[in-house]
């Protein structure tokens, strides 16, 4: 294998693929990035077997071949090389990387040790890019990062009659988004559970701008194609817990507050909460609300905000991070917070649209 290309082109492809390779593991092929040269096209693939990211870049090739290089190391090297052309040349024994007068000789992994990757399903469907990016932003945050409950580390994609529904919960909060212009993306009645980590990567890919997104559903995996990048993720096996009955039908108490002011207030008062478990209390009464954080070690913080509140006087406490996550996920200038009482789930949603809901359990305080 022998090629030349611009350093930045190479770096972009490598850092993308390396996001999927398992970085911390001992030097095994799983920590590797596969470079596959065919003509003037270089395929760069990283995988940890759950998530695979593959991309293709145009290079000046002069000898086809495949090499599996230590992913993170190669990325670091290419990043450190002087700007300009980079030459890469190698086989299973040695990989030479050079630019200017710098040259590295790396020991590649065996190509045969690189995981075998399944071929993607044939039938592809297109997704509405902008709507998908926003939906991922709103939902992925509610998924759990605890591997002890694998089902909750996923985002449920469910085909609904009027579109695609995305749901995630870590058992403390639950986010539900209806993507109306994505009807027919999944066969009717189909539900798949996609690791939130993969969707977070997809979200990053979409952040660049509006490109076409295609999706292919296989029996055990799901493939997203975004431009030249292909992201393949294993699906989570298991049943997503029933969630609909958790969402209260109506609430006696309703707060409407400016989103930015609310978010800024939460971020300010939570500064005294030096650990993740100190709650922020919200006192709801009349036309102002008060945010309050009290700690033994660091003191306390209070902030009043103008708001519209209808309902019983009450104080309810939340994990400040979960609350901020919810408020931040709401589109528009205003946020609606609806509550039953201080121990029952509360709901955050936008004032206008009814396509997003963030259900949040309070913190019980003494």
């Amino acid at each position, binding site marked *: 294998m022998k090629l030349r290309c611009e350093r930045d082109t190479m770096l972009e492809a490598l850092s993308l693929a390396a996001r999927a390779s398992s970085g911390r593991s001992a030097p095994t092929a799983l920590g590797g990035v596969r470079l596959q040269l065919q003509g003037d096209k270089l395929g760069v693939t990283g995988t940890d077997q759950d998530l695979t990211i593959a991309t293709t870049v145009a290079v000046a090739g002069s000898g086809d071949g495949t090499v599996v290089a230590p992913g993170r190391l190669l990325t670091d090297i290419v990043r450190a090389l002087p700007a300009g052309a980079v030459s890469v040349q190698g086989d299973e024994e040695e990989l030479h990387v050079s630019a200017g007068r710098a040259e590295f000789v790396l020991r590649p992994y065996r190509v045969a040790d690189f995981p075998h990757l399944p071929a993607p399903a044939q039938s592809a469907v297109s997704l509405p890019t902008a709507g998908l990016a926003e939906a991922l932003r709103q939902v992925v945050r509610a998924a759990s990062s605890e591997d002890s*409950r694998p*089902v*909750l580390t996923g985002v449920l994609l469910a085909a609904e009659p009027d579109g695609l529904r995305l749901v995630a*919960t870590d*058992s*403390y*909060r*639950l986010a539900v988004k209806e993507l109306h212009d994505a009807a027919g993306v999944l066969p009717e009645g189909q539900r798949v559970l996609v690791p939130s980590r993969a969707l977070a990567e997809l979200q990053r890919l979409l952040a660049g701008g509006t490109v076409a997104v295609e999706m292919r559903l296989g029996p055990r995996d799901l493939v997203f194609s975004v431009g030249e990048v292909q992201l393949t993720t294993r699906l989570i096996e*298991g*049943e997503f*817990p*029933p*969630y609909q009955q*958790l969402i209260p039908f109506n609430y006696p108490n309703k707060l409407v507050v400016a989103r930015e002011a609310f978010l800024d207030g939460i971020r300010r008062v939570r500064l005294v909460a030096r*650990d993740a*478990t*100190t*709650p922020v209390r919200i006192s709801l009464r009349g036309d102002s609300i008060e945010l309050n954080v009290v*700690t*033994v070690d660091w003191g306390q913080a209070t902030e009043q905000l103008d708001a519209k509140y209808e309902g019983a006087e009450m104080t309810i*406490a939340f*994990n400040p991070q979960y609350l901020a996550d919810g408020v931040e996920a709401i589109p528009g200038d205003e946020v609606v917070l609806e509550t039953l009482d201080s*121990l029952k*789930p509360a709901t955050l949603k936008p004032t206008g649209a009814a396509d997003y809901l963030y*259900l949040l*359990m*309070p*913190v*019980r*305080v*003494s």
Partner: protein
Amino acid sequence: MSSNRPRVVLHVDMNAFFASVEVKERPWLAGRPVLVGGTGRRGVVASASYEARTCGARSAMPMGQARRLCPQAVVLPGNFELYHSYSRRLHEVLARFSPLVEAVGLDEAYLDVSGAGGLFGPPEAMAASVRQQVRAELGLDCSVGAGPNKLVAKLASKAAKPRACRGRLLAGPGIVVVAEAEVLDFLRPLPVASLWGVGPAGAARLARLGVTSVRQVAALSPGALEAALGRVAGKLLHELAWGRDPRPVQPGRPAKSVGREETYAYDLVSADEMRLRVARMADAVASRVRRSGQAFRTVTLKVRYADFTTVTRSHTFPAPQVSGPVLAGQAEALLGGLGPAGGVRLLGVSASGLVPAQACPGHQLELGLALPGQSRAEAAWARVSAAVDQVRARFGDEAVAPGSALARAAPRTGKGSAPAREG
């Protein structure tokens, strides 16, 4: 508080507290030797009345030995609810004398009364009114020591106590006041082990140097002490031997830990039995922590084997906890690979890092998700814990226990619950 005013610390120590409370509650015991403590084969005396002490019994002694010395003694298992309530009343009295009251255990307290001189007269007068009011309101005797710091006050209250000597009871003065100028004369004749921080190991090391009294410690250079005991301990001991103790009276400082230990009549030989005991103690400890309006951050497990090898392990949670199952689960996790080896004679579970429950960051509630194999244990346990506490408040600690602690009746163990020793 002005710093040029001489510092005056009182140390108030109840006399034979648990035993005296028992006598107060059962007047027919008056005049009889009373032992409170574990009644099993390996029980330990937690408190001995002065009548029992004249026979040679004393606290921390194995109960069997105390009974042999004092066969006519009335042996009681102890009623900690009752002692707690007396302790609360004691502190109500003490609070009138100073806002700076530091509780030590149930039956001891330091009072910084440096600022109260004008109000209650000189230390002698103040100590006398403390004793008189405690006597009037609790019906119990205490000893009061006064000195320029906590070390001296504590040693003074000890000197004020009644003593059993050669089968006879010598009434103590009740009050001993050591003025600043008398401190060195007061300390020098005392044995070195009376200094705070000198345990049996330290005393033995000093004895090898021929040092047994405070006078001899004071005569040693700090360097020599540091060589014998290590830098920190050596420096500290030198200061104490010269009557200098900078520790402040820390008001309102609640119990630093709540714990329970059991010494077994027969060594435990199975890991299951160990787990059982630990679960039961952990649950009781959590209950006591909640009753005191506190939450804990650290769980400590203590295992003493038949050969007296002692293993202590602890875990600190990132946030304060209140629930029994959390404590029990952690204690069991600490037990981990510790097997019964050659037999376990003592197990202990304690909770420390106590903070007011209001400072408890609260409990993040969970959505009622029905996850296979996943219980909504925590939220449910909080409700169970509250109910358990109500039952215990009415019917006592033993009225309700986790099933895991009852799984097997204990055929071979004594009821050797060893409460904290009193002085």
